[in-house]
């Protein structure tokens, strides 16, 4: 019974991820794009739970669905989004860009399907403890550098949008 549920959940999640991802690219209204992006991130969190990475799923919801979507919606709010013809939403090189992306995508996806894993699931008990051990021992220095990067990004964003007085 449990063996049947997992592929069904995977199929539903991937359908919604790819569908809402396409919606982000193809939607004419930018607010729709932003909310569909949040929906993609939410389904991606479900995918992480399916893989047994519950902590990453929680981070995903906190950071992507919570913070980044709100930031993007602020960006939408502060820039004008006048209604206009659907053709004007796309750049002038649309056919070339689409062909280029498809050409690059096909070999990568073929390689992706070729991967075979051992078929065994990792031991239960959540991923918080090994993740935290890794972050604060082997990756302690990159962790500190990441905090410097966040500080630099925050200062940079404030300086960029500050009005000259």
């Amino acid at each position: 019974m449990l063996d049947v549920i997992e592929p069904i959940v995977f199929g539903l999640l991937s359908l919604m991820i790819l569908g809402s991802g396409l919606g982000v690219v193809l939607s004419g209204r930018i607010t729709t794009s932003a909310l569909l992006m949040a929906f993609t991130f939410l389904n991606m969190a479900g995918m992480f739970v399916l893989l047994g990475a519950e902590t990453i799923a929680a981070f995903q919801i906190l950071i992507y669905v919570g913070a980044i979507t709100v930031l993007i919606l602020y960006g939408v709010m502060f820039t004008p989004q006048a209604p206009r013809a659907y053709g004007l939403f796309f750049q002038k090189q649309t056919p070339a860009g689409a062909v280029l992306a498809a050409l690059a995508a096909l070999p990568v996806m073929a390689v992706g399907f070729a991967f075979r894993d051992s078929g065994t699931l990792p031991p239960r008990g959540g991923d918080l403890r090994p993740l935290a051990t890794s972050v604060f021992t082997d990756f302690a220095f990159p962790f500190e550098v990441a905090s410097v990067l966040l500080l630099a990004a925050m200062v940079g964003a404030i300086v960029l949008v500050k009005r000259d007085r």
Partner: protein
Amino acid sequence: MTSLVPLGAFIAISAALFFIGVAGVLVRRNAVVILMCVELMLNAANLAFVAFSRRLGLLDERGSVFVVFVFVVAASEVAVGLAIVLAAYRNRPTVDVDQVHEMKG
């Protein structure tokens, strides 16, 4: 206990979402939508990281640690990116990347 969903399926979904993001960056002309598509690409890479980390059995939790760093980079990228879009919009009232060409040689 075995899993019925193979690793290749996760990698294929990740690749598909990544190239949806690539197509969006190449095709759309609104700068805010381009930022959204970059976020989709980063998240697709996250899925590949977590899938390899959980299923390949060799890397213990290191793939997930990289996902945490990708979160950090994504958050800073979208903050600085939106600040640049807003600064460019203040100098010249457009968010179309086709019309922002002051630095074109």
